[in-house]
């Protein structure tokens, strides 16, 4: 299917559309509402369940065979070498057809960029295909109990012992650790080193008996985030990316990829949220209220801004001319603050029913309550809004660095 990559974009889009129509298993679109946004810390359980459906499995096999899982990866690692505009068009076409894009989440989006930039040929050849097939599923081991935004103050230690590094420490705010097989983690391998020096980027396996995972109940009632305790967990030196003690720059690649996000396609989820909300409020007759209309118009307008911003980012990436303002921090700030404001808006416009949760054991939430609470995390994880504003001010706007 790599022939796709050489087509001009409009033709590419048409070809992809036909391919999807031809290869998506009959009934797949009906298995689950695949376009329901799973953003930030929202409930992923229904999605996870749907991914175990045989039709999904069949679709996954076909995509793998066609090089359409991790399609932006180089061909030699199983991808299709797609440019970002093609990858974005593929996401849009899956969305339009109502079928899932098969993704490998952090392995695809965060670990792979680090491996591609800093890994050895042997590491790429070993790890990337296993991420692509889903055999290795990654979670992130950066944050620690006393180092939130201040990553470099980490305390996890890696003791080099022959051809292994033995990792001990505590990680926290680790999303979906229970579903992962591996963790990419930072640890200090040079005792006595400080700040950015002497830190290594290590891929560890979570089935080691030294790993204990404790889910952290969140304000949504769910526990996607976990504490992960590492007690003398061994990893071969082969699993150190970017060289012993030189992991900071690897981490920065990962963080950059995380902040960059999916500027051009993430908006599909936001658009869906706001459209669903508009529909609900219309049904309830609330869209006759000019004050409600104003708030929804602001939200809808912001979704469009993000769409058009994504469009410009993509054009910038493609042309290699990324104006100031197209940096990842600006994008992260934009979408996370939008999401948080959308959450706040719900409490203002949904009326009394906003407070009534569904019946049932535990702390079930309807989709709007879930969005409200889950959106509180958006301005915290992957660099708080405060951190993003510092980065924008200093790196994009060139304001003088002070202490902060």
């Amino acid at each position, binding site marked *: 299917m790599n022939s796709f990559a050489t087509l001009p974009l409009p033709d590419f889009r048409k070809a992809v559309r036909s391919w999807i129509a031809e290869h998506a298993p009959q009934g797949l679109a009906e298995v689950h509402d695949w376009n329901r946004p799973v953003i930030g810390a929202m409930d992923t359980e229904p999605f996870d369940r749907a991914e175990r459906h045989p039709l999904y499995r069949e679709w996954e096999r076909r995509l793998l065979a066609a090089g359409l899982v991790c399609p932006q990866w180089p061909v030699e690692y199983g991808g299709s070498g797609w440019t970002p505009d093609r990858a974005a068009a593929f996401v849009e076409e899956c969305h339009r057809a109502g079928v899932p894009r098969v993704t490998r989440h952090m392995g695809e989006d965060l670990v792979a960029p680090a491996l591609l930039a800093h890994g050895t040929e042997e590491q790429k050849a070993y790890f990337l295909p296993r991420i692509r097939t889903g055999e290795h599923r990654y979670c992130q081991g950066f*944050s620690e109990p006393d180092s939130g935004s201040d990553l470099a103050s980490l305390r996890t230690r890696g003791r080099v012992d022959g051809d292994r590094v033995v990792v001990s420490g505590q990680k926290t705010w680790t999303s979906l650790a229970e579903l992962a097989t591996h963790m990419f983690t930072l640890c200090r391998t040079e005792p006595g080193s400080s700040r950015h020096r002497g830190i290594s980027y290590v891929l560890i396996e979570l089935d080691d008996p030294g790993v204990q995972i404790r889910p952290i*109940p969140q*304000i949504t009632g*769910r526990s996607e985030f976990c504490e992960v305790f590492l007690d003398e967990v061994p990893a071969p030196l082969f699993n150190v990316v970017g060289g012993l003690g030189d992991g900071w720059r690897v981490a920065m690649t990962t963080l950059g990829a995380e902040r960059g996000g999916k500027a051009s396609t993430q908006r599909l989820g936001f658009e869906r949220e706001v459209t669903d909300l508009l529909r609900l409020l219309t049904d309830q007759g609330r869209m006759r209220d000019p004050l409600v209309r104003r708030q929804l118009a602001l939200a809808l307008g912001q979704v469009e801004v993000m769409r058009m911003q994504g469009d410009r980012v993509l054009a910038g990436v493609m042309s290699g001319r990324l104006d100031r303002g197209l940096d990842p921090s600006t994008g992260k700030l934009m979408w996370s603050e939008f999401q948080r404001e959308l959450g706040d808006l719900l409490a203002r416009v949904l009326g*009394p*029913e*906003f407070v009534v*949760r569904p*019946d049932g054991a535990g702390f079930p939430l309807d989709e709007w309550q879930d969005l409200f609470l889950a959106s*509180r995390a958006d301005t915290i994880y992957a660099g708080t809004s405060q951190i993003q504003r510092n980065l924008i001010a200093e790196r994009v706007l060139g304001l003088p660095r002070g202490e902060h």
Partner: protein
Amino acid sequence: MYFSDTVECEDLREVLERFHAAHPTPYPSGPAETIGVDESRWSELAAMGAIAPQIDDALGGAGLPFEAFAVTVEAGGAVVSDLPLLASAAAAEALVRCGESGAALLSEVAAGVKVAVALDDRCPWGTVVESGVVAREHAGSWTLTGAKQLVAADLSAQTLLVLADAGPHRGLFAVSIGAAGATVTRTPRPALDPTVPLLRLDLDGAPAAPLALGAGTDAIVADVLDRVWIGAAAELLGAAQAALDLALDVVTTRRQFGRPVGVNQAVKHRLADTHTTVSGLRSSVRYAARRVGEPDAAAEVSWLAPLVVSLAIDAAVRSANDAVQFSGAMGYTWEHHAHRYLNRAASAAALFGSADSHRETMLTRRGW
């Protein structure tokens, strides 16, 4: 002339703070837990005279100024209390206005008997749009039929004051659960804020005692709601200040990059603005609560009430959001207290009516 907390109010404030410190408000320790109804704290508060303390002592109350009631709900808000202070005060204020027919029930309320209030069909403490219930008279006896989608009560309230359409006007009726039998169905509804009891009320020919009938009922309800809104504002003031205090505590103790988070000017300025908002809210709530007790203030109270509740909703949401954000990932956990304030604040518009609608009411009542 100018307001300052009376000595009684300051005393009461301290007494209540000690009370809440000694009797922590229950909160589910995790998502799977639910909290039951705890009668012992309620009885103790009743014994202290802190249930609707503004009721005249001749009528069984503590005879304290309305400000004292505001103090009780403010203290409750600060601990995200589950106790039905607002509902009891609403019941008391309604019963006071129903004269003889409400007198017996009134002294029970002051003594701590729980009485729920069901006015608007949908919004527990919002402006009444629809009552949702029809009252019918037959041979001097009244029955009620209809539903209230949301009532701020749990099953421990054995009497409900129900607003219903009764001929050309509305009437206010007392329904006794014990006497009503199968004609009353109460269905608990789980709330976003697990300390807020909610239920759906279905009435199918439920026997009811009329407390107020005729053209005067709406004025009674409006007066009651004005007082509820000032009480709601006091409760949210308590929550807003407590959330701000929590944020201040976190940013003073939590360290990032080798320094307390609170050394960051962005944190300082945001919290300074929140403090300014909460400070203005405090002045407003104290002023409005004082004016309720003054003889010439009926017109002013009628627009102060929606004003203060609109201020309170906005301030409480803002302050709770700050507490979550500045606590970092910790603020997103169930264990941390920030989300208690968040859920309470985010529920306010749903329970009391939106801030925008209250602002509009204020403007209208001032004649603009």
